[in-house]
Each structure stands twice: as C-alpha cells, then as structure tokens.
C-alpha cells in the first residue's frame, strides 16, 4: 500500500474522531478551570446532537439547528450551574443526573416529534454541514507530497472542525491573555481571592459553565449534523467520558487538550485500520484486542509518561463563605 497516502488517510480519520472530543474537552476545560467539575459533558453533547438534528430536520437549515443544539446544551449547563453554583450541590451528582436526563429526554422527545423510534429523519441538503473545500485544494490535489496533505487532510472537513481547532489558540489566548481568563483561572484555584478582590465568583462560574455549554453544543451538533446526517439514540457513545479523560490527561491546558484528543483520535483511527497495524507490527491483531487497544494504550501512556495531574485547587467544591 502507499504508505504516505495511508498515513494521510489515518490522520484524516484522526481529525474527524478527535474533533468532538476536542470540543468537549475544551468545554470541560473552561468549566473545571473555574472550579466546576463536569461529568455531564456526555449528556450535553447528546442533547445538542439531538436538538441540532431535530431542528435542522424541521427547518432545513443546519445553522438554526446548530443554534438549537447550543441552546439545549446551555439549558443543561444552566441546570448544572443552578445545582452546583447557586445551591452548592454536589457537582458529580448533578453531572450524573444530566447524563441520565439527556439520555432519556432526547429519545422521549424524538419519539414524540418524529415517531421514528428516537431517531430524527435523515438530514439532506442544507440540513447538514457539508465539507468545506479550502482555496486551491482542487488545484493542488496533484502536487506530490503537499497535494494529498492539503487536499485530503487539511481541506475537506466541515466548518465545525476548523472551528474546533481554532478554539484551541483562542482558548489559550482567552485564558492567559485576558482579564476574563485571569479571573476564571483564579476562581478555580481560590474563589475567596476573587471574591475579596471584588469580583463575583458566581458570575464567573456561570460564565464558565455557559461557555462549556456552548462548546458541548457544537460538539453534539458536529456528531449529528456534520459527521452524520441525523440523530440516533445514545449516539454520543461515551465520547463525553473520553473527553474528560483527555482533559485530565492534558492537565487542564488548552494545547495539551489538543494533543490528548488527537492521540485518542489516532487510537480510534488505528482501530479502524487493522491492516495498518498488521503492516507495522507484522502481526494480525485479534478482533477484541483491537477494540481494547485504544484503552490499553491510554493506560500505558498514562502510567509511563504522564506525571501526576493536579486539578484546579478549588475544583469540585462549592464556594461557601458562611455556613
């Protein structure tokens, strides 16, 4: 086989698989950097996947669908915020509840609206995000080496993929170069410091949770309206949890989040290409072992190369000044 082209294809698949993880991982990053743990990423993605597909199906416009997806995710974020910020509830429990809520509600509403067994109708035309062909991609297609790289790997993804990748430097800039970022990071480390500096802890945390909602919304919309053409129940398929793992892996840093999710994406891509693994290792990988491979690799890398991950110090604890 053409090794170079195979590599490009593998990386192309990596990018697609990594994108929803990356968006969810960045979503979690904002929330957890502000001190609000969020294991409800999965549920928010799922809700967004459903509402964006449903509204896109009804209106025939994927952008309206995207907005609806973001809106649904924001509603769940608001629930999480009210529970864990306003009422200082347990953030883990709230996250678990949101996952259940999304899993049940999406199917319930889908059934009520479309009567297709918890699915949305297939999206067609403007109802989904089409791949974007970057300038000169067609022209460059036949240039050796660079051509395939640009045409296959860089060009030809949905706009949401470029958005996700752009979100990485943007997040970095926002967190480390703006006033908002400074305060956001501070509130996750020591909310009392923020409070006594005259800034609202509650306001900041709600802002972070809202950004988290927006990003999860995009992640969900990407699943159902860009990668797929419609919603299928439980289609988040555990990606929210993998994103959470990636977040810890990345030690809550934006660029590392990119690397971590790309790594998970690569493992996922490799899983679809046992032929490549066979060529590289010279061994045929047995089916179930192949399924376990991404997870085994993660554990090995984690144990071997990644040091202790220290979460934001005030993470998971509600901010209480009086009891």
């Amino acid at each position, binding site marked *: 086989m053409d090794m170079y082209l195979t590599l490009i294809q593998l990386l192309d698949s990596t990018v697609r698989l990594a994108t929803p993880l990356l968006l969810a991982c960045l979503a979690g990053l904002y929330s957890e950097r502000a001190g609000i743990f969020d294991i409800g990423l999965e549920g928010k993605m799922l809700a967004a996947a459903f509402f964006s597909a449903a509204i896109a199906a009804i209106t025939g416009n994927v952008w309206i669908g995207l907005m609806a997806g973001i809106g649904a995710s924001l509603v769940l974020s608001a629930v999480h915020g009210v529970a864990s910020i306003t009422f200082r509830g347990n953030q883990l429990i709230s996250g678990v509840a949101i996952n259940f809520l999304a899993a049940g509600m999406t199917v319930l509403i889908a059934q009520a609206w479309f009567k297709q*067994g918890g699915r949305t109708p297939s999206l067609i035309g403007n109802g989904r995000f089409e791949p974007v062909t970057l300038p000169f991609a067609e022209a460059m297609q036949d240039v050796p080496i660079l051509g395939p790289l640009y045409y296959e790997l860089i060009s030809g993804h949905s706009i949401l993929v470029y958005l996700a990748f752009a979100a990485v430097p943007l997040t970095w800039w926002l967190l480390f170069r703006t006033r908002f970022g400074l305060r956001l990071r501070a509130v996750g480390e020591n909310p009392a410091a923020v409070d006594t500096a005259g800034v609202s802890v509650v306001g900041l945390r709600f802002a972070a949770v809202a950004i988290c909602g927006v990003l999860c919304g995009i992640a969900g919309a990407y699943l159902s309206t860009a990668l797929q053409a419609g919603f299928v*129940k439980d*289609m988040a398929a555990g990606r929210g949890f993998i994103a959470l793992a990636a977040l810890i892996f990345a030690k809550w840093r934006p660029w590392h989040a990119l690397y971590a999710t790309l790594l998970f994406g690569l493992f996922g891509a490799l899983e679809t290409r046992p032929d490549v693994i066979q060529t590289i290792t010279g061994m045929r990988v047995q089916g179930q072992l192949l399924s376990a491979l991404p997870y085994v690799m993660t554990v090995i890398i984690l144990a071997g190369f990644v040091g202790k991950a220290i979460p934001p110090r005030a993470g998971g604890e509600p901010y209480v000044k009086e009891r």
Partner: protein
Amino acid sequence: EPALIFDLGGKFDKSFNEAAHNGAQRWAEETGGEYREIELQSEAQREQALRRFAEAGANPIITMGFAMADPLSSVAPDYPDTKFVAIDVTWLDAPNVRQIGFAEHEGSYLVGMLAGMASESGTVGFIGGMDIPLIRHFGCGYAQGVKAANPDAEVIANMTGTTPAAWNDPVKGSELTTAQISQGADVVYAAAGGTGVGVLQTAADQDILSIGVDSNQNYLHPGKVLTSMLKRVDVAVYDALVAGTDVETGVFTLGLAEEGVGYALDDNNASLITEEMKASVDAARQQIIDGEITVASYYENESCPALDF
C-alpha cells in the same frame, strides 16, 4: 391477546426488532387486533416479562432474539397452555414453543454475490455491530457469496466494538466505512443496528454502494444502497399473530426456500442490479434451495472458510 417482547435494542432499531414491530403493526391494521408489547431494559426483565405476560393470559407470546432462549426454557414449562414464539431460537426442547431460526448466512451469501459482482475494485467490506457469533454468522455467509461471484475479491471485515454501544455508534460506523473505502472497498455491507445508519450514510456520501440488513433499507439512500439482506422477521411475526393461539409449535428454520431470507429488489435499487446480476443470484438461490450449493454456517463450524475473525 397476543404479546410481543422486543430485545434490548428496542423496537425502533431500524432492523431486527423494527421488522417485528412492522409485522405486528401490519397484523393490527389488517385485523384491527391489539397486542401488548414491551421493550426490555435489562437481562432480568426477560424472564419477568415472559411470566407477567403469561400470567396475564397473553397468548401467543412472541419473543425476539437468541437471548430469550434461556429464560424461555424455564418459563415455558410453567405455562403449558400458553404458546410462545421464539425468533432466532432453534435449540430448545419445549413443546409449547414455536422456534424460528433464519438462515442468515444464505441471505448474506446472496447479497455477497451481488457485492462481488457490483464491485469494480474487487474489494468489498463488511461492518458488524457488536462482536458476537450471530454477526460473524452474517459476515461469513456474505464473504462466501463474494468469493463465489469473484474468487479474487478481497473482503475486509470490521466489528464496531465489544459493548452494547456498538449497536448505536453511527459515528464509528462512518469511520469504519471510510477506512474500508481507503482500503479500496466500493461496496459495504452493514450488519450493525443503529451503527449501520452511519455506514449507509457515509457510503452514500462518498459515492460507493452499501447493503442494508434485516429490513429493506434501500429507500434510505435511493440509488446508493445496492440491496438489503432481508430477514423476514416481519413475516414470521405476522404469521404467528394471524395463527394466534393455534400457532404451530416446533422448530422452523426459514431459509431461502421458505422465503425467510432473501435480498431486496425495488425501484430504489433497480438501476443498480443488472439483469445478469439478478440472473446469477437467482440461479445461486435455486442451487442453494436444491442443495447444490451449501453455504457454510459459522454456527456449525465455529469458524469461517472465507473470512477470519
């Protein structure tokens, strides 16, 4: 009043359970009859649902999926006056159970032949859902059909995963399809429940052919779905409902001869199936019925002559 127990996938899985649902609906519409139904949520509910329906006097009780065999073997003897219809079960020793198996490998063989003939690249794909023997059974028949049509053809097979999530992960289905396409596949057969939705979608998007499963899925992407391997669960359920309490018990295997399995041909794929293709597939079908061709069953051999898992 009859009852229908869907397997864990739920009645709208776009394939197996949905076929049963369609059959029952057809019966209800035609006869105006009513039936009870439940979508199982957990293993422990299998026996529970059986007993509850039996106790409430439901008759016959139709169950979906091989996993009902075990609970049936303990419940059926307790209700000798109730008739049970077990789809995908053929090995129980129970006088009041109608056991219906399907020769999925034979149907898959036919669609495999079509794939082999339709493929221009000589490479075709198979995407299974969760890695269980039943799915290997599908894949094995398919691979044999491909090789029969084109001995030089290559069959790439992937399973989606090892957890139940593998039935509902269209994103991964898509990615597997893309991976198979990059290995040269230009026809893919999906036997993967909700994951198959992603397979068919991606195949259509990338302009290759796909093959649906269980129900006729040709309409999902007209002109892009080569055919669907039909497993006439709907007919089996419909027939059982029509027969009602008089349903005949015993073990029945529905193969090509009984029209229990087959391939779908309709307006949506008419342009894809040439006369020659149709002729040779129909010939093979007859030969299988006549016993001139035997399609090896993964179930019987625990391995497949045409494909490694």
